[in-house]
């Protein structure tokens, strides 16, 4: 699945964090044929409405945007991967651990991986941590665990989009955007 470089037919800046609009917003744009038919792997609203609507965060891989112990509001009714830079709650592949990361690549994107690029499938997203290893180490944790470790995450593992912090009071408000371009 890893290729030596991006498909030349794709836009010049296909990597996550390029600030561009989501690709499916422009159906006329050139690029690989990706089936963007949404939602087939998401539970119906009657199920997703059960939540979780609120979560508490543990561990430090989303610093500085999100601190361990933060209370967040989650929208569990999302039916597709939200735009790049959004913070999502999902189940990690294989372990099923409920985790929180930032969307760095959406279905159809090329993402840098090891020596080349990875082309994400129609249901896949590339989820990364905000913190680097030095930051997590400074907070008593090991290296951040994200798609660089467990690969792309399927839409069926998406649980919701975290959008608002309601605790602690001093950091009350909408969640901040992407801290830096990767």
């Amino acid at each position: 699945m890893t290729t030596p470089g991006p498909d030349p037919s794709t836009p010049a800046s296909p990597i996550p964090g390029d600030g561009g609009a989501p690709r499916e917003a422009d159906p006329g744009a050139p690029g690989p044929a990706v089936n963007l038919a949404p939602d087939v792997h998401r539970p119906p609203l009657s199920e997703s409405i059960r939540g979780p609507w609120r979560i508490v965060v543990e561990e430090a891989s989303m610093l500085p945007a999100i601190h361990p112990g933060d209370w967040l509001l989650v929208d569990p009714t999302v039916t597709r991967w939200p735009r790049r830079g959004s913070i999502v709650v999902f189940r990690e592949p294989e372990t099923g651990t409920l985790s929180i990361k930032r969307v760095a690549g959406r279905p159809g994107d090329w993402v840098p991986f090891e020596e080349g690029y990875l082309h994400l499938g129609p249901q896949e997203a590339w989820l990364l941590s905000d913190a680097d290893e030095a930051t997590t180490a400074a907070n008593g944790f090991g290296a951040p665990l994200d798609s660089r470790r467990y690969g792309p995450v399927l839409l069926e593992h998406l649980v919701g989009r975290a959008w608002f912090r309601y605790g602690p009071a001093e950091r009350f408000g909408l969640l901040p955007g992407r801290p830096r371009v990767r």
Partner: protein
Amino acid sequence: MSRLTSLLAPKTVARAHCDVPCGIYDPAQAVLAARTVARMVELIGQLDPASTSVEDRAKFVRCVNVKEQHAELVKHEVQVIWSDYFKPVHLEATPDLHTKVWNLLKLAGENKQHVDAALAARLEAAVKEFADIFWATKK
């Protein structure tokens, strides 16, 4: 207030998932164990080989025992750092790391088999070199 807090507190935990804490690796224990092996060889050499006193025999057995335990400890400590801490990227700086570790482990085994000051000194030097390689990756 605490009732309100518990009412607002989320029941679901999401992990901003990290690996197990790092920074717990330290070759100091291996260095100390290699020093102990050398010291025990030294103490064994100071015993009177002609002595048949129970005291001397007990000391001899104790020294041999400690020497072998600490040679085994060297192997364990070095193996853990080698297998769990070192990553492929570290081989760029030390391409012969695997060979060095392999030789070090064999040297520790030889120190269990023999009572030899030269072997013990070589083990100490090899462990010190391993520790230096480890600390160089932290710079």
